[in-house]
C-alpha cells in the first residue's frame, strides 16, 4: 500500500519487462472507490484516459483496452484505465449508474492520471457509450485528441439492441411460459434483466433522453479518430453526420472501418472464443498510429 497526497491508496505495482513502464493497479477516489490501472512510462508528457463500455460490452472489450494501454505506454504515453462505479471491481450500486455518473468517474480518472504524472496534454479513447462519456469529459478537460470505437450515437437504438438480447434470452426461457417485454418490465419494476445484467431506469432515462450525437459533436478536439466495426461500405449515417460536423468545426478527422460485426452482448471473451483474434491487434495498431501522429508523446 502506498501513501500519496494524504490519501491512502491500495495499489500494486509491476514493471513491464524491458519497456521501463510501470503498471500500477489501484483503488482510488472516494467515498466510493474506483478500480483502475495506471501505466507509467518514464517522464510522460501526454496522458491517455480510456473510457470503457458498460455491462456485457465491458468484458467484451476488456482485453483490447489492456493491450492498447500497454502498447501506448511503451510508446511513451501515460495511460489511465478505470472501471465505473457499479461495475467491475469498483464500489457502487449499478442501479445508480447514469450517463452523468459515467462522466464523473471519467473525470476522477483524469484527476488520478494528472495527479500521478503531472501531464497537461490529454487524449481520450472510448468505446460504445464510453466513447460519448470520453467526448464529454474530454471537452471539459481540454483534450487534444479523441478516439471513439464504435460510439453509441443514438440512445433509443442502443437500448433496442440491448433488449434484443433480452428477447433472445426470453426465447430460451419461454419454455417456462414466462412473458418477457423489456420496456414494460423496466417501467413496472425499474429494471430489467438482460442476459445477466440489470438495466436500470436511471441509466436508461439518462441515456435515452440525451442527444448523444450532439454530445459527441460539440467542442471536438483538434484531432479525432472514429472507428466503426462493420456496417458495410462507408460509415453509417449518424457516424457520417458526426464526422461532417467535426470537420465543419475544424477538426482533423480520421475514420477507420473494421470488417465483420461485433456481437457486443453475446459470446465470451472474443480472443478466447476464437472470434476475430486479430481485431484487438488492428484496433491497437490503428489507434496507436493515429495518436503518434496527432498527439505525439514528446513535444
Amino acid at each position, binding site marked *: 500500500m502506498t501513501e500519496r497526497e494524504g490519501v491512502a491508496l491500495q495499489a500494486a505495482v509491476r514493471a513491464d519487462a524491458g519497456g521501463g513502464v510501470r503498471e500500477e493497479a489501484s483503488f482510488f477516489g472516494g467515498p466510493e472507490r474506483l478500480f483502475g490501472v495506471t501505466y507509467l512510462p518514464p517522464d510522460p508528457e501526454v496522458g491517455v484516459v480510456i473510457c470503457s463500455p458498460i455491462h456485457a460490452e465491458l468484458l467484451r472489450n476488456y482485453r483490447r483496452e489492456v493491450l492498447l494501454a500497454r502498447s501506448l505506454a511503451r510508446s511513451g504515453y501515460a495511460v489511465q484505465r478505470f472501471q465505473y462505479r457499479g461495475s467491475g471491481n469498483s464500489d457502487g450500486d449499478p442501479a445508480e449508474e447514469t450517463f452523468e455518473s459515467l462522466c464523473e468517474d471519467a473525470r476522477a480518472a483524469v484527476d488520478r492520471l494528472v495527479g500521478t504524472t503531472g501531464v497537461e496534454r490529454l487524449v481520450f479513447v472510448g468505446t460504445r457509450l464510453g466513447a460519448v462519456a470520453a467526448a464529454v469529459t474530454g471537452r471539459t478537460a481540454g483534450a487534444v485528441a479523441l478516439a471513439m470505437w464504435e460510439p453509441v450515437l443514438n440512445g433509443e437504438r442502443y437500448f433496442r439492441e440491448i433488449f434484443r438480447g433480452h428477447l433472445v434470452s426470453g426465447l430460451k426461457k419461454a419454455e417456462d411460459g414466462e412473458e418477457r417485454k423489456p420496456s414494460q418490465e423496466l417501467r413496472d419494476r425499474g429494471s430489467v434483466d438482460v442476459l445477466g445484467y440489470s438495466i436500470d431506469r436511471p441509466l436508461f432515462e439518462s441515456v435515452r433522453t440525451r442527444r448523444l450525437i450532439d454530445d459527441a459533436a460539440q467542442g471536438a478536439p483538434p484531432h479525432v479518430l472514429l472507428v466503426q466495426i462493420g456496417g458495410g461500405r462507408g460509415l453509417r449515417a449518424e457516424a457520417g453526420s458526426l464526422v461532417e460536423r467535426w470537420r465543419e468545426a475544424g477538426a482533423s478527422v480520421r475514420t477507420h472501418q473494421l470488417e465483420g460485426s461485433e456481437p457486443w452482448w*453475446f459470446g465470451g471473451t472474443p480472443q478466447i472464443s476464437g472470434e476475430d483474434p486479430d481485431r484487438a491487434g488492428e484496433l491497437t495498431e490503428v489507434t496507436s498510429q493515429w495518436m503518434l501522429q496527432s498527439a505525439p508523446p514528446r513535444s
Partner: protein
Amino acid sequence: MDAAERAAPELIDRAPESTAALETPVYFEAGDDVLLGVLTRPSVRSLNVALISAAGGLRGTSMGRNRMMVRLARQAGGRGFHAFRFDYHGVGESTGPIESFSLDAPYVQDLEAAARTVEGFGVERHVYAGICFGARTVMSLVPSREGVAGVALVEPPIRDGLRQGRKLTRYGNRQLMRVALRPWVLAGLLKKEQRAYYAKFVKAKLHAARTKDESREETDLSWVSEDYLGTLQRLVDRGVPVLLVYGDGSENYREFLRAQTGRLGELMSSAGDGIEIVTLPGQIHGFSDLLSQQRVIDTIEGWATGLFADGDGPPEDLGGEDGA
C-alpha cells in the same frame, strides 16, 4: 445417490459486505507471467480462512459476468472470510498470451501461485470455489495442497475436453434442443458461416441417428473423467468437504446423473455427508440471469460459512483496515 443433496436455499439475508476499501490489488508471478489478483479482507471478525475463486473460462476475467466473483468475494468478506480472485494468464490484467481453455489442461500453475500469494498474507486455510473450467482447475490443484478447508465446484464438467473433443453428434435430441436455444447459438443464425456450420452439424446428426451412435454412451461410461473421479475420491479420503452445484437444466448435471450408474455412484454412496450436492433451478451455466447469479453466490457463501459455524476455524481478529 447417498451424498447429501438439497435443493436451492432461500436467498439469505445480507451481512454487511466488504467494499473496495478492504481490497488490495496484488501482482504475483505464475511461471513466466505476472497475474493480477485482488485480496478482499473481511468486514467482520476474521475466520482467518480465504475463499479463493477460480473463474470460468468463457467470460475470462476474475470479475465474471456482471462482476459475479467480485460480489461473491465481498459477500464472503461479510461472513469473516478473506477472499482472493485473480485473472488467469493472458486474461484481463494479467500478462501472457491468450490461450484456449481446455478442460484437460487447466491452469493449475496460476491457481497454485494464487494460493501461495494468499499464504503470503498469513492466511493458510483455504476454501476453493471454481466455476466450470475453474472448477476443473481447482480439482487439479487441491489434492496436492495443504490447508484445504473445503472445495466448492460449480458446474464442473464431468468429462475431459467437453468443449474441444466431444462429438456434437453425441448430444441427445433433448440436449440438442436446449443447446440450440442458447442465446449465442441463436445469435449465430445471423452469421452466414455460422449457419453453414449448423447445417453441417444437422447433417452429421442425422447420419449418427441412422447408425445408432448414441445408445452406446448409456452403458459405456468411459467418457467420465478419471481426473474428476480421482480428485473427488481423494478429497473424500482426506475428509475435505466438497460442494457440487449444478443447474438442474444443465447438460453437465444430466451427465453427472448419467454417470451415477458407474463409479461415480459408488463414490457418492461412500462419501455420505462429505459431498454436498445442491441443484439450482434451470440453467445456471453461463449465469445469464441475475437470479441464478445470486443463488450461486448465496449457495457458496452459505455453505462455506456453515463449515465454520461451530467455531471450527481459529477466530482471529484481522478484520477492518488493520487486517492482513
